[in-house]
């Protein structure tokens, strides 16, 4: 009897060490940590690429890239890496893995081994993408230079070398990884909530992850289909996207954006959840309009599937189709507005403590609003005619992603770092990091609105001389944000060297979710007795 007790009590709580702990890991916290480290690495690579682009664009003429192909390789890789190997791993794989079980009172994810393969597919996927940089893409030049959107026929007949094939296989693995993760998350959230935690009592971060993983589950297979068709067009003589064989290049765009638009919500919705937790914590006040907040995310996710062709207003769609996509797209502003105003209302009447996570959260709310309202401008096909494929679009999506999603990632990082590591970060360094980044990214991206309005196309390595002034400003801003990133890494190292204990709940009475009831860092396995939610 005693041995059986031991089998239940000890052996299953095996705590492997060394490389086995990570390579074979089935522990949601270790896997979450690996996702976060991976995302930091991805962000570093993607960030270096963006600084490279800003170096080139700092002055008119070609200075750093001897041909424009290489510049286009940089834009392509920057986009793919930031989306698939930075934001998604950080938000979903990292914070999602770490916090969903802690927040719903579960000992681990529903499918721990699947969790392991979800993660380990990603380094393989990233490797394939990196290989694509070094094999032929366009004739005689290495790398994929077709943009992250890999539109046919530029990605088929325009790239005869195997680079695009490597990129497609990379996307396939990343897609498989996130679909497996999505299945795992959905199962966990639906089945493993602690007794008493109904869906309507779930923390908003968990709601945001639930919406996100459903988007992944429904959108990623469409991408997989589209890029498989691309693969067979390239290699096996099919003509899905080749007019010469009865295909149509626009079919690829429709398929791509049917995935691509939900994808941008995949990138931002988990951030919504983090901001809700953080704002409530530091206002010491429950979230205002909880149900409205939850269902606003559901609505954003749902509408996100029926607006895809607003990325395609200039392809020659019918008047009726363009009119429909204008209306559908503008509708998204309504639930988004509900979220913005509910965050403000959560802080209204609160007792705000301006700790680093709250700074990032407030910065996010304002900058996301700016990116949101330019989105309303772009939604109108009539004026988008002038702005499509210009830097206005680049400014818009960086305001919602680079300043939106990335700000939420840093907000979440500072918020949960004490919980995950057990150590308190330095507020001074955290705030310095915030201000450098806040000022830097605004200097980078706000002038891009001007250049876009003036007509500067995106994805060009060199530009007419009239655009030189604001390009110089943007480049200087990017160096400042790059310096901010160094301060971030220094802050992380500093916190681990200083080893100042954070305690179970460093944030006080405002932090009401379950993860703050556990020690920091939480034990290898938590909730041996499930918490009871009243």
């Amino acid at each position: 009897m005693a041995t059986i007790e031991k089998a239940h009590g000890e052996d299953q709580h095996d705590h492997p060490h060394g490389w086995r702990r990570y390579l074979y890991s089935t522990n949601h916290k270790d896997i979450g940590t690996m996702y976060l480290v991976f995302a930091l690495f991805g962000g570093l690579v993607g960030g270096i690429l963006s600084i490279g682009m800003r170096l080139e664009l700092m002055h008119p003429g070609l200075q750093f890239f001897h041909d424009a192909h290489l510049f286009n390789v940089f834009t392509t890789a920057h986009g793919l890496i930031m989306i698939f190997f930075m934001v998604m791993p950080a938000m979903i794989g990292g914070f999602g893995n770490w916090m969903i079980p802690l927040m719903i009172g579960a000992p681990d994810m529903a499918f721990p081994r699947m969790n392991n393969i979800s993660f380990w597919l990603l380094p393989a996927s990233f490797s394939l993408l990196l290989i694509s940089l070094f094999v032929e893409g366009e004739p005689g030049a290495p790398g994929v230079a077709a943009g992250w959107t890999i539109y046919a026929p530029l990605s088929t007949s325009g790239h005869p070398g195997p680079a695009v094939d490597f990129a497609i296989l990379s996307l396939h693995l990343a897609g498989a990884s996130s679909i497996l993760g999505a299945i795992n998350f959905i199962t966990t959230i639906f089945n493993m909530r602690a007794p008493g935690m109904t869906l309507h009592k779930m923390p908003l971060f968990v709601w945001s992850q639930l919406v996100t993983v459903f988007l992944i589950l429904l959108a990623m297979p469409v991408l997989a289909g589209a890029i498989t068709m691309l693969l067979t067009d390239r290699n096996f003589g099919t003509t899905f996207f080749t007019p010469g064989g009865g295909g149509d290049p626009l079919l690829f765009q429709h398929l791509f954006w049917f995935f691509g638009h939900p994808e941008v919500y995949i990138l931002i919705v988990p951030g919504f959840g983090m901001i809700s937790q953080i704002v409530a914590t530091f206002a010491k006040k429950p979230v205002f309009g909880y149900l409205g907040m939850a269902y606003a995310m559901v609505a954003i996710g749902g509408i996100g599937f029926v607006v895809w062709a607003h990325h395609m207003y200039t392809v020659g769609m019918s008047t009726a189709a363009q009119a429909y996509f204008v209306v559908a797209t503008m509708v998204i502003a309504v639930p988004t507005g509900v979220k913005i105003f509910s965050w403000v209302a959560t802080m209204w009447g609160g007792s705000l403590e301006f700790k680093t996570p709250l700074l990032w959260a407030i910065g996010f709310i304002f900058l996301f609003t700016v990116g949101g309202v330019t989105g309303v401008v772009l939604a109108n096909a009539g004026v988008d005619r002038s702005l499509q494929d210009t830097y206005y679009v680049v400014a818009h999506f960086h305001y919602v992603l680079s300043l939106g999603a990335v700000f939420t990632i840093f907000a979440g990082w500072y918020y949960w770092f004490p919980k995950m590591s057990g150590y308190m970060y330095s507020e001074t360094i955290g705030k310095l990091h915030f201000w450098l980044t806040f000022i830097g990214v605004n200097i980078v991206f706000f002038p891009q609105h001007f250049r876009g309005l003036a007509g500067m196309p995106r994805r060009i390595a060199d530009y007419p001389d009239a655009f030189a002034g604001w390009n110089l400003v943007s480049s200087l801003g990017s160096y400042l944000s790059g310096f901010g990133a160094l301060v971030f890494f220094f802050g992380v190292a500093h916190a681990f060297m200083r080893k100042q204990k954070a305690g179970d709940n460093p944030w006080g009475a405002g932090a009401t979710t379950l993860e703050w009831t556990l020690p920091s860092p939480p034990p290898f396995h938590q909730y041996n007795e499930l918490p009871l939610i009243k």
Partner: protein
Amino acid sequence: MLLLIRLIVFALTIVAALAGGEPALAGLGQPSPWQLGLQQSASPVMDNIIWFHDFLLYIITAIAGFVLALLIIVMVRFNARANPAPSRTTHNTLIEIAWTIIPIMILMFIAVPSFKLLFFQLNVPPADLTVKATGKQWFWSYSYPDNGGFEFDSLMLKEGERKQDQPRLLAVNNEMVVPVNKTVRVITTGADVIHSFAVPSFGIKIDAVPGRINETWFTATREGVYYGQCSELCGKDHAFMPIAVRVVSDQAFSAWIEDAKKKYARDEVLPSTTVAAGQSVPE
């Protein structure tokens, strides 16, 4: 906090200046240094786009300013020092209905002029002249089916080929030429990959897609040269395939046509497939 406020106020001042003081900095036919807003208009469509954009700019600036003001009020009034005891309010049905309904009303207010503009752009009026623009890696070819169907290539001028006053990366060897105050229909297609034909001062941008023919239109109201750039990533030299449209008087246009017919005359009879491609657009 103060720094944040100052920075945002600065940003908003620029936005406000953008709507109000636009023409001063905006180029006609090409961008001008430190330009903040859209290029000057040279067509009725662009007149409407500029009006609609300014209309939107006021609305979005007001919205962003409103959210910013709320955030500043919250930060000042409800920080831990000013308000040590947080309230527990989590619901207010009236305000939740208000912030759902009011945005819907603003969007409907935007939708009316938006649709007017969209229908104006997309209903191509009877054209006086048709020009076919074919996007190729990495130049444009223009043909004039109404005037004998001659076709010529338009390549960017390189360093050393440009005259003093010609802008870098925009000037071309053979410009597309059209008469002033005439409705020009542009039909586009791509020969290899997708390109996009754009001229900011006319307010047009239409993709040139292989296997498809797209159309758009403009009526240039002022003589001059109007520049645009390929607006869909099309490979290595995407940055180097500009569009240049020279708008001239009727007489000058007729003279140019006569010249061009000789200059771009082909030695052999056109293969029938090329003609069919040009004619496949419904008149």
